[in-house]
């Protein structure tokens, strides 16, 4: 029974990662606003972070990052590291998280996206020393954060519902197990 609930959770998260990744790369790239696309994977990682805690946030982050790494084909492990820390960071806020309140999740997702931007800038700066922070801040980081938060309003609701469904089925099966 234990195995079954865990594998159901893993399968669901895997499907969510696929969904976000494919939407982000193939669909939202056609609907750019101010030259940026929203970061759906980040919404997923952050949501699992504050909904389920540090550990699950980290693991979801690690796998999202690995997917990106494999796909981008530069250095494997770079984005895994970025998303890993974002998952951990969001996991710190699980104690003050309540499912029905939308303010905290959206703020956290926005802040996470800015942190993600800072990490990207550090990497870029290592590659190209002339990178101008002001430009990237106003033209990439801020628009990306805003767009991501906008999309998060819908996507977060979906992830929340999926998680609630998972938790309900888990509780039910564990209850049966105890009885």
């Amino acid at each position, binding site marked *: 029974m234990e195995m079954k609930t865990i594998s159901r959770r893993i399968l669901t998260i895997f499907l969510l990662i696929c969904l976000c990744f494919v939407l982000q790369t*193939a669909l939202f*790239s056609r609907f750019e606003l101010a030259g940026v696309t929203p970061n759906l994977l980040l919404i997923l990682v952050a949501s699992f972070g504050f909904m389920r805690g540090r*550990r699950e946030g980290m693991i979801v982050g690690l796998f999202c990052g690995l997917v990106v790494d*494999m796909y*981008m*084909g530069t250095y*494997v492990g770079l984005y895994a590291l970025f998303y890993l820390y974002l998952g951990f960071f969001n996991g710190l806020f699980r104690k003050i998280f309540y499912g029905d309140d939308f303010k905290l999740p959206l703020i956290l997702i926005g802040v996470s996206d800015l942190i993600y931007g800072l990490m990207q800038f550090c990497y870029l700066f290592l590659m190209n020393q002339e990178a*101008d922070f002001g430009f990237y801040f106003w033209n990439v980081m801020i628009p990306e954060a805003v767009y991501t938060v906008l999309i998060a309003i819908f996507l977060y609701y979906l992830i929340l519902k999926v998680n609630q469904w998972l938790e309900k089925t888990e509780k039910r099966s564990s209850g049966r197990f105890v009885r």
Partner: protein
Amino acid sequence: MRRKKSFGIPSKYLLVILTIFCVMMLFVSYVTGFSGGPLQAVSNYVFVPMQRGLDYVGSLISVSNEDAKSRKELLDENETLKQQVEDLTVQLNNTRLQQSELDTLRELYQLDQAYSAYETTGARVIAKGTSNWFDTFTINKGTADGITKDMNVIAEGGLVGIVTSASKHYAVVRSIIDDTARVSGMTNTTWDRCIVSGSLASMTQDQTISFSDLEDTSDSVSVGDAIVTSNISDKYQPGILIGYVTTIEMDSNNLTKSGTITPAVDFKHLQDVLVITKVKEISDGNENH
């Protein structure tokens, strides 16, 4: 209360362990150039088919610019295009004459044709990179279609970028406007070489990329001159159009010039690209690229 997961490592230690894991992966991939290997099979069989499908749906629902144009705009455009056709026909005739002359002269000198037309294969852009910071995209052909790493990608007669990784059914292309891209270029009139570097900043602000280290000894390069890929580049085939000079100024060292180039390709609306199915082979390891 939610149950704890079955493994009981405190999250702090897990973070440290996973960080070390990632750093090791980074190190390994940096040293060996490993980029996913067998893991990329996942993207081959899971993501790419879905991206293809979604891209097709997306192309159906997103309203293209052409459909939205009014009749008057179309007429005006038609007028200017007709004018352009006339101009170009005249130019073409001139060029043809010169070409035949050149051919005869070449025959006389027994020279091989310097730039044979490259063999290309068409590919479709199916997805953008996941990051807004780096300008990469994915095309729907991979090693199964003969695409390998370091092949040049062109569109609309201009250079788009280079294949940075090829998997079985897809390949990732880094465009020349990416911040980390450097292309060795030259002017097609004087053959003075320069380095063309992509920049997201200037691309967003005024649709240009920059060039530097141009040794314009005869002082003849001016605004509007074409910059093509140079013959000394170790990854790019020579003679592919990069763009046209928009601004040019002398550097403070009074030896070299730098400025900006408007790329020949419209990077905002890339849909179909051509991949040159020939990799430039250099026997000696050349640092410049």
